[in-house]
């Protein structure tokens, strides 16, 4: 007879999604040693003990529920059953709930199809939904479109090791979201001296002033814990689109919104007056290294 597993039972349940968080997590270099702490009762891709039909029947045990995708009360069915009822059923059983990605956390992209009826599970943008009161005590939010695989593994291992996770008011772990995407960006010197990039495709210059980069006010550790262990959007010259934030996606993502030539939204926690003062000083100097191509300067 097979020994009964006493590992926490992990159920990964998808609602309205693109599967981006599922595939993001599959990139984790230590995937199988992390998953070894759990018994996978159901997963959208990995072989698991129970089939989707069992999940729908409501018979699957669940200690840890991972939700992926935006939430709607009615109209999204699997096997003739409203997914909202499945989410609730397993949310009740679970000891921990992780909302994986911006859709499951705040509503995300798919909310824009039907803003009245589509939301995250416990949050609708930043507002608490009816489910918040019932399930907030179990909830960890991992927004990001997609979420980073190592953000997920941090939460999974903290749960496996029965350690408490410090969270903010939107239930995001502070160790992951206490940083901004700007933290660790390789373009930081150009930000400090207010040097704009002249075009796409250059390693020099900051993308905050013209190209729409939301890194300085977007929470997330994309430039601290690199993507695919290799890079990040801003490191390859793509602006941060704020994909971890409740209002993602905003519009005109490749353009910085400005007031009188100054970015309309300030870096996180920086008073406008402080920013303007510093900008005035920084811009009053012409620094040769920043007007030369980076790899040409020392030649």
């Amino acid at each position: 007879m097979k020994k009964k597993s006493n590992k926490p039972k992990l159920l990964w349940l998808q609602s309205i999604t693109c599967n981006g968080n599922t595939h993001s997590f599959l990139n984790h270099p230590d995937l199988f040693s992390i998953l070894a702490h759990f018994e996978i009762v159901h997963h959208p891709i990995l072989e698991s003990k129970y089939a989707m039909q069992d999940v729908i029947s409501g018979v699957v045990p669940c200690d840890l529920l991972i939700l992926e995708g935006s939430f709607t009360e009615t109209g999204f069915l699997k096997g003739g059953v409203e997914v909202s009822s499945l989410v609730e059923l397993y949310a009740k059983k679970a000891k921990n709930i992780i909302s994986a990605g911006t859709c499951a956390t705040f509503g995300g992209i798919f909310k824009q199809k039907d803003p009245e009826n589509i939301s995250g599970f416990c949050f609708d943008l930043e507002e608490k939904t009816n489910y918040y009161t019932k399930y907030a005590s179990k909830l960890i939010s991992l927004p990001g479109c997609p979420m980073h695989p190592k953000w997920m593994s941090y939460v999974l291992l903290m749960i496996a090791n029965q350690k408490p996770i410090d969270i903010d008011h939107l239930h995001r772990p502070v160790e992951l979201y206490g940083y901004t995407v700007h933290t660790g960006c390789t373009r930081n010197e150009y930000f400090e001296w207010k040097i704009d990039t002249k075009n796409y495709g250059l390693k020099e210059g900051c993308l905050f002033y013209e190209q729409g980069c939301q890194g300085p006010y977007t929470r997330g550790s994309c430039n601290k814990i690199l993507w695919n262990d290799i890079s990040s959007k801003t490191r390859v010259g793509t602006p941060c689109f704020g994909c971890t934030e409740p209002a993602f996606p905003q519009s005109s993502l490749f353009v910085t919104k400005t007031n009188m030539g100054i970015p309309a939204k300030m870096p996180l926690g920086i008073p406008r007056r402080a920013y303007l003062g510093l900008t005035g000083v920084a811009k009053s100097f012409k620094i040769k290294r920043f007007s030369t191509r980076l790899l040409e300067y020392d030649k």
Partner: protein
Amino acid sequence: MKKIKIKQLIEKIEGEAELDFTFNDGLIEDVKINFGFYRGIEEILRGKDARDALVITPRVCGICNHAHLITAVRAIENGYENAGHKIELTSKASDIREFTLACELIQNHIKWLYMTLLPQIESYLDCKSEENYAIKATYLSSTITKALAIFAGQWPHSSYAVPGGVTCDPTHLDVMQAQSLVDESITFFEQVVTALPLDEYLNINLCADLHKVGGDFGKLLHLIGSSGMTEIGKSHDRFIVFGEGMLSKPGKSIVTNISNVNSKYVSESAQVGTVAKSVTYKERLYEVGPLARGMVAKTPIVKNLHKRYKDSLLTRVFARIHEVATLLEHARTLLNNLKLDELSCTLEPQHTLKDFEGTGIVEAARGSLIHKTIVKDGLIVNYEIITPTQWNLSHGNKEELGVAVQAMKGSKSIEEATFIFRTFDVCSVCTTQ
């Protein structure tokens, strides 16, 4: 004559689908493929800035997001050209785009081999091994997406391709790192997937030499061959490719005759009972994907298999895995020849057109992906996405059954039919967008 209808939920296909099988005298006569939920990406795009499509459309699909990005940027660039402002990409920019796209296809095909086909065929044939196929899949897929991320910043959901080129500015250091990751992937392919050196594998042109293929691919071919599955899964034997790229030129193949195609003859229509729309070319159904590319490009080993087994399950499965070898070889060549001193992006950000109509086409993992954008006053007024699976998984029309339905017709069991279904590399989310 006894008719029976059976409903079956199919999972682990990038979401789920419901298949309604109709049996007649013990054989499958028809199948209705139902996908549940329309997410409305095309509607979400309306009223947004033209370039926002570069961020929004990758979110159609977690596994082929990069193909959506490249299609979206080509749609904008084609729109500029139609409006009289042709954008010339540098060879560096187009080579980098092709490289990252190749990486995504490799990722996809390898996950399909290890996470769909091998586990499914073993459970269908009741010969379950204890192997952890997923660890092989994720080792190669995460290695090759690392190489992608060197240029594109991340996978999934990069937006590094912009009108005029790419946002990255790689150095030799980056290219060396990418080369090393491609080499690692090739080593895995040689030692684990085929048990053959890549050049020897690529020299196989005849079915008679396929016995040389070992490794997990060899095991799969053996399982298919020894279980009488070489003859099943045949469909209309009609193929189409729209994307110009490393794997094939555009064209269609009917009874092995190759002729030209034009995407303006593609039309979409709504279907009863599912939110997926069907697609036809001049009102005829065509199969898209790796087998179509192999037929149109006249890949010798694919043609040789086709000569013997037609468009059967074996030929279809083979064509997809075979692309991994072609793509790895191509990825290596692209990196070796990358001209780092060229511009990454030739379009100045201030040169933004406000009014245009454009079409972007890319050969994605599952076949031709088409985006059409109409932009007025800088904003998207209409956006149309036609995904590869819409071609392969439609119900068909008055004259004919859909491509996958035809392939399942005549099958004697649901288990066999769903295995045939999975050989199309079904993607639920792409089909319903």
